[in-house]
């Protein structure tokens, strides 16, 4: 295993999704592994009251030097992992900057505020992705839901996206370093999750 270092200190990562998508699982895999490697990690969260439906934001600060606060200053995201396209743009609006890289799952999830009438509609996906690209230094569109379904279950999408995230080289982690955390989290489904992780890494290969 090659020794990896932070591309920037602190490295500010946002993982955003809709309640129920499992972004906390991704964050815990990453954060637990980084703490074991001696990094100072702060993992803050904002989430809705209800168990499903609202936006869940995970703010992850990674440093060798100091403990950072649980919310980012505006414009300070280095990496945004978006499990849903509208939520990715919502984060860019507040936390993006011209150097931000984004990894986005293009599968839309509708909200109850969308009726399909004239008043409220889900935006056109191509236009949405174009907007995300134009606000990012680089964007990887990873069809995580689709790929996970092909691997047998849509719930693998979050681990697949974790693979895409580390595949971009943004974090000081590789597949091997995540194995213990994955084994602990999914003792019975370890192999399927490892396959999803590696598939995610492949999808962002240059």
């Amino acid at each position: 295993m090659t020794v990896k270092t932070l591309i920037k200190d602190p490295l500010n990562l946002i993982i955003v999704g809709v309640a129920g998508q499992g972004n906390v699982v991704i964050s815990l895999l990453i954060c637990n592994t980084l703490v074991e490697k001696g990094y100072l990690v702060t993992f803050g969260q904002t989430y809705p009251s209800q168990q499903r439906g609202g936006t869940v934001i995970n703010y992850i600060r990674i440093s060798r030097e100091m403990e950072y606060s649980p919310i980012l200053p505006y414009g300070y995201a280095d990496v945004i992992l978006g499990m849903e396209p509208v939520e990715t743009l919502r984060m860019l609006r507040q936390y993006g900057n011209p150097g931000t890289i984004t990894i986005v799952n293009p599968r839309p999830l509708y909200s109850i505020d969308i009726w399909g009438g004239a008043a409220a509609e889900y935006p056109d996906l191509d236009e949405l992705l174009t907007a995300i690209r134009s606000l990012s230094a680089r964007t990887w569109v990873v069809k995580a839901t689709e790929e996970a379904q092909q691997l047998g279950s849509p719930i693998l999408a979050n681990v697949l996206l974790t693979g895409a995230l580390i595949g971009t080289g943004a974090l000081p982690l590789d597949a091997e370093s995540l194995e213990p955390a994955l084994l602990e989290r999914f003792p019975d489904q370890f192999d399927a999750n490892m396959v999803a992780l590696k598939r995610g890494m492949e999808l962002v290969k240059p």
Partner: protein
Amino acid sequence: MPAIDIEAPGMAMLLMGNEAIARGALEAGIGFAASYPGTPSSEILPAIAEVAKRRGIYAEWSVNEMVAMEAATGASLAGIRAMASMKQNGVQVITDFLGNLVMSGTVAGLVLVSCDDPGSRNSSNEQDTRFAAKWLGLPLLEPGNFQEAKDMTRWLFDLSEELKSVCMLRCVSKISHTRGSVRLGELPRKELKASYDLTRIPRLVNPVGHAALLKKLEQAREIFEISPFNWYVGPDSPELLIITGGACWLYSREAVKVLKLEDRVGILKLGTLWPLPEKLVASYLVKVPQVLFFEEIDPFLEQSVMELAASLPPGSPRPVFYGKRSGHINAYGEQDPNAIIRALARIMNVPYQFRGGEYDKQAEEAAQKYVIMRSGTLCPGCPHKATFWVIKNALKLDGRYGFVTGDIGCYTAGLGPGGFMVVKTIYCMGAGAGVANGLGQLGRFGFTQPVIAACGDSTFYHAAVPALINGVYNNANFILAVFDNSATSMTGFQPHPGTGVTAMGDPARVVSIEALCRSMGVRVEICDPFDIKNTTATLLDLMAMDGGPRVIIMRHGCELIRARREEPPYRVYIDPARCVGPNCGCDRLCTRVFACTGLRWNREKGKAEIDELICSGCGLCTDVCPQGAIIREAL
């Protein structure tokens, strides 16, 4: 992640603030923990309960916060270190008990943990419980990071024993629910032995007791003057001093770094908040020209420090104060690094633009165009959705403009479109039934609107029972609808007196809601809200009755718990031939009104469709579609 009681002194572990509090209590040799679930406090008790058996200690979910605090006190009085944890609303509930507890003193260390929710992201209100400590006389600490969440909790048990008084830890959401690195300490290995000393004086009468309490608080103040939980970072003679505590300490330090003001601005981070360590604070007040207070939620430190400044000897130099009073910091809502960056930039007159103007403009334009709202709502398959659908239709059929007095739980969503806006009042735990008691007496003033009081199963035990008894006694005209999903779902599926299991996983006797209600002589109906037709008929029948309270128990288990255990009951799909879209006349009833997140409107096709990623397979929407286009096939 290893278990929370791992024996590894010195090891760094990623812990949630609430887990760090639990670990601190274990390191202090706690023997008794009690709580009632409430975000952001809910993870403390389960973390202890999970390891309780092998540590030889006890943990319980109490029926409400009052009993939790009283039970923990019982343990303390018999020599067992004890802790009660709760959210801010719980602290409001227990103030009567606390106000008497501080007069009686304690034996073994007794700690109250209050988790406040600035911004009320997961609460019906935002309240700053630091004032309860000042009002009632409890020594108060607040952690500024995750390490302190553990270390302070541990130390508070020692302090409590030294003062023979209950002590309080106040923690905000962004510490309680944030994870950070925590270095572990040692766990004690000591056998606990409980015994009540009958020679102990139960309490001092007032005002003798009050005088004794004030003496204890002075003793605490002296201890706080040299506490390692207070510290200063910055230059020797700063132009401005930030006085802060809690998560705001982390935001303050980041703001000073972002604005590169390390040589001009100092930070006094306080961990011991009440009584205020006055000598320490005064030593800074006389040497800085400007002070900025940064704290969540109310101006607690701000007022305490200003009070101190007013009592400094005549002629003492006094700084200019900035904070909530001056309008530089909001006196409401959750704080973040941006709030303190803005205030600092303004006072110190330094330019700050967080990113280029062009990017800003482009991001704002894109967001305006494409970012939709995403309101929280009831989960797909939620039985409360079925109950609200029944209530909505029954109220409409009844035609007398009836409404629901709401309560605290997932079903608070009845205020919004997810529950068809049938809920018209919302206050605190048990208030739905309480308010209905008043409305139920107004027939004498020409009031004819039917009133349905809502409460969840856990809320029923917590606070609705006295209101129901009151209704029986005084013959109040209302229906109590118990939204019984057999779980405390909103806070994370904790067990309660109706579930047959305890916090430590032992079997428990079930306190039957229907038996309890029937013992009061009221009519009780038990319905499955997924049976829309019969439940609506039963509810209409209850609404047609007059006189004292009637109870309808809407019983159907929480969908999220079911989904963990079983496959979905149905495969649900839409028959495109039967969904006639704009020609139906229902005007998209399923996606516009019923509004389950598992249903989508496909505008190209002009038809509804199911999002198979979201649909739970409950099949409720089949009964909603007027064309029978939503098909459910039993699996």
